[in-house]
């Protein structure tokens, strides 16, 4: 096949690319433009993300500086009253004790604070967008490709503009995590509302429900199992992403993992990795059990 190229004109053998110089020029223009844009709005951007910074710092301090028994008891209480399952509660107690004994308590608290804030933001942002998508096919057609890009774009790539805009620190990490974790929240809210039984919606209409009443009384409650699955996915993806976000200055377990990679600390890497797994399993089992409990009406069948 190589011989074929000698017979053909050059542009059929080597893909005719733009010249290096013109690409370099364009790249420079875009990069410089973006940089100057960021520079001129830096104050506004800082002011906008300031509340996030405060909230994150507050929660982190609360988690880290509270005596560990209080945190542990609070956590077990949340797990128990969320899941009403003693096995999950005991599992949580055991894994948190193991984390403490291995000296990872503080790092775990930092990660926990981060994941909590990320999940809250993802839910607050994701559910309204999901509702809008469910109400309008046009919004859905517009948002879906954006979500596709968010989910498939390698996370390292969008860390670049995030760092350019927000600098290094917790907040850019937070934003990167939210971008990564919010698509399932949006998609599953949209899906859940769209799957609500048409007959029940018709009944709500026939009784004269307003749009808001229909959303509150029928669509959201019936979409709740799917929305809960979305929250669950969002938590899992946040936990996965905090490791990557440690590259831009997020502390906690992720930072330890990053250091372990750089220094080939096999044991440290795996211990921190397992700590992340433990938190993930606790979150997952608790939120799933809670979601299931919300559906108690569908379990008792006439018979």
């Amino acid at each position, binding site marked *: 096949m190589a011989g074929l190229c000698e017979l053909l004109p050059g542009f059929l053998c080597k893909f005719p690319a733009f010249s290096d110089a013109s690409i370099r020029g364009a790249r420079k223009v875009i990069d410089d433009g973006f940089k100057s844009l960021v520079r001129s709005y830096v104050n506004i951007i800082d002011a906008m993300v300031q509340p996030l910074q405060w909230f994150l710092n507050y929660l982190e301090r609360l988690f880290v500086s509270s005596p560990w028994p209080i945190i542990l008891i609070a956590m077990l209480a949340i797990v128990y009253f969320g899941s009403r399952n003693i096995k999950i509660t005991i599992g949580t107690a055991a894994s948190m004790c193991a984390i403490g004994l291995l000296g990872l308590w503080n790092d775990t608290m930092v990660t926990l604070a981060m994941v909590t804030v990320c999940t809250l933001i993802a839910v607050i942002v994701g559910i309204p967008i999901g509702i809008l998508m469910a109400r309008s096919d046009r919004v859905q057609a517009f948002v879906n490709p954006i979500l596709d890009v968010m989910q498939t774009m390698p996370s390292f790539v969008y860390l670049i503009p995030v760092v350019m805009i927000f600098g290094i620190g917790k907040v850019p990490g937070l934003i990167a995590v939210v971008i990564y974790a919010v698509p399932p929240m949006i998609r599953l809210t949209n899906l859940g509302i769209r799957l609500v039984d048409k*007959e029940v919606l018709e*009944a709500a*209409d026939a*009784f*004269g429900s307003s749009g808001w009443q229909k959303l509150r009384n029928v669509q959201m*409650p019936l979409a709740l199992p799917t929305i809960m699955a979305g929250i669950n996915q969002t938590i899992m993806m946040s936990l996965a992403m905090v490791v990557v976000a440690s590259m831009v200055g997020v502390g906690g377990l992720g930072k330890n993992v990053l250091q372990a990679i750089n220094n080939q600390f096999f044991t440290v890497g795996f211990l921190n990795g397992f700590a992340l797994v433990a938190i993930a399993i606790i979150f997952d089992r608790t939120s799933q059990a809670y979601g299931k409990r919300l559906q108690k*009406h*569908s379990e*008792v069948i*006439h018979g």
Partner: protein
Amino acid sequence: MVSHAIEVRNLYKIFGPRGGDYVDAVKNGLGKAELNQKYGHVLGLRDINISMPAGGIMVVMGLSGSGKSTLIRHINRLIDPTAGEVLYDGVDVCRMSENDLREFRRHKTAMVFQKFALLPHRTVLENTVYGLEIQGVAQAEREKRAKQWIARVGLAGFENHYPNQLSGGMQQRVGLARALTNDADILLMDEAYSALDPLIRVDMQTVLLDLQKELKKTVVFITHDLDEALRLGDKIAILRDGMVVQQGTGQEIVLNPADEYITAFVKEVNRGRVVNVETIMAPLSGNPEGMPIAKGTVLEMAARAMTAANQTLAHVVDEAGRPIGAISLSAIISSMVTPTSHEAKAA
């Protein structure tokens, strides 16, 4: 509360993106099949004119695809018509603003659905208060009213059950209680009993008839079952391919079917339970003979009474007890059997 009649006038519904463009063509005789083949639009309803009696039960009957469910959805405008009007108390429902329509649905109509359409995450009580909740009635008041209706439909003690803990018949009782709690003048029942098994269906028909005796609502009842239509309907309209083939009382339809289609329908009907004695009585000649039978008695009951009394002759009396006609057992029996002309026509 005074019930009002519902007038449906020149109602057309053509499903499809440009339904309005074909109304004139349909008025000029474009058929359902042709409309579908040539233009890709579906003819749902064609020139419907029905006046539904105030405080009575109007039954709309037809087989699946005849447009009956489409028709009932025009009364509370769950479906917008392509042309025509639906008048209630002088107001055209089809021209109401969104707000007026919502108020109309909240206060004037209530609907019962074939597949119940209950909210699965709410208990029986919470489902039943739904209409009042939407209207903004205070919780204590709406629960008090809902409990009365739950008891009336025979579900007392089940207030805190979830719908899927109940059988189909019980779920539809919840649907009925939910509609009645709304205290609306118009009760729309879209094949409300079609999903129930026969015994429970008869049971629920009795519930409706008993309630209607005192409530006197304007009920629109959709069914594909002629026996149900004859039992419930003060007036019956039969739909076929989106058109009204015949409308009138049950007796009129059974005794004078408009065409072969309806003849085939009424062939299997138990006439003894539909036809009244005054319909077949002969004029009085001389003194009234035999036992008295009240006007409005169906033939089967008359025959049973006469057989029990061992009489072959009787006379029909009106509400005041005055004799108005004569009747014989043989005349009753010959009217109860399906006429051979109908058999031949249907075959």
